């Protein structure tokens, strides 16, 4: 299994994701430079966290036009696994690979803290190692992570089960007090209809080792590493 981690100018979770892939999971890793025009034969592309192009204007707005993104789009169209984390999620929404948009946190503040995520889909290559309605402890770190979609889109993605993670309390209850940013329906992560492009605001790479306070994020990395074939053969 080979992971490709995209590096835009201003990306900073690249090394953290790389560290988990390479040092914790022991899988093959390649960094994909934003100016590159091929994906180096990787099986899963990670768009990591950061402030690509400073997140100026809007998060992800400029990054989506980077040369590498054209290849990421083609790869996604062929069914390849694309995983946007934090800024990566924002880029995927801007690029139209995922529905909706991420707007300023309701608090208007950047938030870096632990959250609980209710896992609503376990039939995906990204979540296959999670149990039904698992609650994962995963940190967030963003100022613009409030998920928005217009009412029609929102009800469509809900109907189709495209919401993969929702902010919840420690007992798995999806309540307003567990929502750190004002996301509609407490949405923390969504998948495309085909099931191969995932975007999520929380940072699983920050909780993939016990010394960092938790290992729930590793479940997602493991899921991908061991289940990628499911999508590729579909």
């Amino acid at each position, binding site marked *: 299994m080979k992971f490709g981690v995209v590096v835009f100018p201003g990306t900073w979770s690249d090394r953290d994701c790389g560290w988990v892939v390479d040092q914790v999971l022991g899988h093959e890793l390649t960094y994909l430079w934003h100016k590159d025009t091929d994906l180096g034969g990787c099986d899963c592309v990670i768009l990591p966290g950061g402030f690509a192009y400073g997140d100026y204007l809007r998060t992800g707005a400029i990054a989506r036009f980077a040369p590498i993104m054209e290849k990421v789009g083609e790869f996604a169209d062929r069914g390849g696994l694309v995983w946007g984390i934090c800024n990566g999620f924002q880029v995927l929404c801007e690029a139209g690979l995922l529905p909706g*948009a991420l707007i300023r946190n309701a608090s208007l503040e950047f938030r870096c803290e632990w959250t609980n995520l209710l896992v609503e889909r376990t039939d995906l290559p990204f979540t296959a190692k999670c149990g039904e309605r698992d609650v994962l402890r995963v940190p967030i770190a963003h100022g613009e992570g409030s998920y928005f979609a217009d009412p029609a889109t929102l009800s469509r993605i809900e109907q189709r089960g495209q919401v993969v993670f929702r902010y919840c309390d420690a007992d798995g209850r999806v309540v307003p007090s567990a929502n750190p940013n004002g996301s509609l329906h407490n949405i923390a992560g969504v998948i495309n209809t085909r099931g191969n492009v995932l975007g999520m605001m929380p940072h699983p790479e920050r909780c993939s080792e016990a010394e960092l306070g938790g290992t729930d994020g590793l479940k997602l990395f493991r899921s991908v590493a061991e289940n990628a074939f499911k999508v590729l053969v579909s």
Partner: protein
Amino acid sequence: MIARVIVTPKPVVNDPQGLTVKQGLGALGFTEVTDVRVGKYIEVKLEDGSEHEARRRVEEMCRQLLANHVIEDFHFDLEQEHKRR
């Protein structure tokens, strides 16, 4: 040529910033304020050319980059030479 682009959050989108500004103004005693929306103002200077063409190009810039149609509306003015209002 100068384009003055205004990008505003769509009415259906929450505008926490607008709300906060409104509260801030209220706290300062500006109680006559009934609503505030906060958007972006983008001033784009262009090499001179036909206005028609410029309009087409700026429209394109807005669609592609300056505004996100999921959450934002935009409109703009063009002016031949730079003079501040």
